[in-house]
């Protein structure tokens, strides 16, 4: 095994993860990066300097002991490494794949100051995948049962984290999920080629083996209310329902056929497996000329899905410039490699359709960047007279999402902010209603998997205190 000393003399370059070639993967739904081999993982791990005051840990929203787990990888103790990761992160297989590492751990890694940072995300993924393939599947020890019942509403990353944390502390946990499958955005939003659904299913199954009950098809606010849950004997309720309200552009012609929210498009493709139509029954529109509005992860996922479904041309239309695109760097890079085009500094003003009400194109305006706005980003300003038309038979609107009021409307004593998100105590996740906690996108607005999980962990600790000590 290489020693740290040797590294200093002849630096090991960042080990790229093997992946499917762009010209092949752009037409299939198989996962794009194929994962590290043991050799690649150890070579990459050897690049870590084992800093005393590691920047990476400070950059990690849940404070994973990064040098610690990486050191275990160098030593070949992969079981130790995964146990170390689990200490702070319940779903490393997911986070290794979807976290925006470039602005978190890897963005703060000292090695990145002069060259490429340590590939922390890739290593995290390696440990989780190794465990899944070769691990014992042994369950962590759980405390003796407390007799307290907890209801978790929503089975996204934040709800699942709460469920996992509280079940090992001995509480009786039931997860209520509106959809017919658990996993939240991890199953209905993020596509198979980025996060295989079998991984999510396995994580949920693991929780079930620990004793978590998952009740699907339970729309809290309609099929049952939060107050009903207390009446049914639950002692505490965690709300992790995500930010499931699609935003549209509110432009003329938006209700024509061929214009879908990214939520609808991706739910059809991922949750309903419509990419296999007609082998499955749910259809999905196949576009030849596809326009995706927006430039976040959701937009990249939509664009890459459209390409895989056989589009001739897929264009991302975004009103700001490349620097402001909020998607993970890896996603933008992968999308570009797959032939997705970028119409930057461009904003749609109108949809055009035919007499059957089907979309045929859109009118757009070119933009230029002006002074910084409230968000600190330079404000895009339309260039007068720059209207032009682009052809499109499918438009996917991925310009963000808001708070879905279904649950909150039915629970009047939970205080909301003016955008409809739940107000919580930042140190505990407590809402204004006794015995009710909340976290994830329904508190922060659409954010990230790791922040949703972090909020879940914080709330789980607070719920445990409440159930144990009454506060």
């Amino acid at each position: 095994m290489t020693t740290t000393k040797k590294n200093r003399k002849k630096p090991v370059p960042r080990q790229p993860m093997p992946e499917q070639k762009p010209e092949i993967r752009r037409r299939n739904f198989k996962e794009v990066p194929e994962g590290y081999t043991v050799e690649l993982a150890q070579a990459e791990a050897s690049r870590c300097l084992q800093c005393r005051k590691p920047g990476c840990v400070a950059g990690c929203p849940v404070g994973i002991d990064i040098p610690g787990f990486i050191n275990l990888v160098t030593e070949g103790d992969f079981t130790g490494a995964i146990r170390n990761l689990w200490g702070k992160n319940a779903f490393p297989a997911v986070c290794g794949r979807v976290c925006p590492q470039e602005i978190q751990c890897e963005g703060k890694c000292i090695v990145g100051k002069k060259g490429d940072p340590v590939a922390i995300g890739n290593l995290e993924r390696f440990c989780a995948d190794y465990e899944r393939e070769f691990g014992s599947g042994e369950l962590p020890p759980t405390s003796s049962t407390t007799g307290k019942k907890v209801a978790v509403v929503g089975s996204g990353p934040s709800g699942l984290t709460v469920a996992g944390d509280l079940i090992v502390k001995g509480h009786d946990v039931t997860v209520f999920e509106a959809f017919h499958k658990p996993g939240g955005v991890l199953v209905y939003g993020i596509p198979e080629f980025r996060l295989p659904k079998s991984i999510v299913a396995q994580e949920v199954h693991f929780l079930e083996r620990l004793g978590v009950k998952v009740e699907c098809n339970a729309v809290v606010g309609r099929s049952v209310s939060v107050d009903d849950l207390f009446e049914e004997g639950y002692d505490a309720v965690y709300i992790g329902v995500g930010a499931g309200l699609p935003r549209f552009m509110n432009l003329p012609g938006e209700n024509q056929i061929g214009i879908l929210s990214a939520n609808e498009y991706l739910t059809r493709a991922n949750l309903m497996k419509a990419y296999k139509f007609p082998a499955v029954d749910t259809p999905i529109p196949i576009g030849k000329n596809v326009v995706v509005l927006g430039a976040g992860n959701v937009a990249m996922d939509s664009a890459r899905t459209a390409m895989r479904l056989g589009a001739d041309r897929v264009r991302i239309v975004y009103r700001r410039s490349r620097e402001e695109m909020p998607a993970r760097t890896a996603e933008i890079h992968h999308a570009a490699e797959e032939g997705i085009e970028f119409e930057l500094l461009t904003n749609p003003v109108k949809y055009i359709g035919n007499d059957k009400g089907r979309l045929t194109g859109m009118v757009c305006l070119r933009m230029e960047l002006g002074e910084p706005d409230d968000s600190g980003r330079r404000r895009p300003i339309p260039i007068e007279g720059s209207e032009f038309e682009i052809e499109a038979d499918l438009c996917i609107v991925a310009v963000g999402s808001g708070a879905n009021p279904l649950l909150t409307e039915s629970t009047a004593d939970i205080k909301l902010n003016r955008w409809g998100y739940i107000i919580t105590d930042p140190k505990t996740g407590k809402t204004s209603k006794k015995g009710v906690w909340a976290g994830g996108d329904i508190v922060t607005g659409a954010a990230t998997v790791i922040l949703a999980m972090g909020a879940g962990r914080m709330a789980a600790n607070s719920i445990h205190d409440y159930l144990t000590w009454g506060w």
Partner: protein
Amino acid sequence: MFKIVRREEMAGGTVILNEIEAPKIAGREKPGQFVLLKANEDGERVPLTMAETDPEKGTITIIYMVVGRTTALFKSLQVGDGFQDVIGPLGKATHIEKIGKVVCVGGGTGTAVLHPITRAMKEIGNHVITILGARNKDLLILEDLMRKVSDDFYITTDDGSYGRHGLVTDQLKDILDREDIKQVVAIGPVPMMKFVSLLTKKYNVPTLVSLNPIMVDGTGMCGCCRVTVGDKTRFACVDGPEFDGHQVDYDELMMRLQSYREEEKVSYDKHCRMNG
């Protein structure tokens, strides 16, 4: 699994009734609400408004017309078989109040949806006039049930094979001309709801319609079910399914219902090939 405990064929096998075990939904349902059903792992999620619920037995009853791949699949399910997923109750319940004379107009399987609303309208003390329309006598459903919950009862058929020869709007017009009607509820094919609304608008009678756009989640998270009501985009699954009939853009709704016409053909052909 949500087991089918009763199955009936109506209108010459084109309309199917399923009574399904779903105790949690049965205990909560209110008139006007709907459920989403999915038959099996690879199935589609389809919204259907409940025709009846029996909280004691813990069952809900749905009635649907066989129009494509998914409903053909539903039709093939027998007593003892079941649906993998039933989600609900969803949507807003009908606002029922005692206001006087009410006309309930039903067409096609819309009559099934209309039934619990009509009953509730009657139970609260309204004078209920019902008009059921069908293309011909054989396609008429739920005549007896509807008769039972109505004070006055009329039938119209397009071909004159039963009841009055004509459209529901012909009968409705006569009633509006001679009586003081406080409210109309119209549920049926989109063109029927459109023409009823056009008529009642002339008489300034508030009119409630129940819309049936394509849906996916039924919880307001995808926007697939969007409809234009009074120049505003609304999501039928959470803001509806009932809306002020005078404000609905029916032409847009009809157009959007065609979104997957080609795909539905492909899917249905496959079903027919597989099932002979």
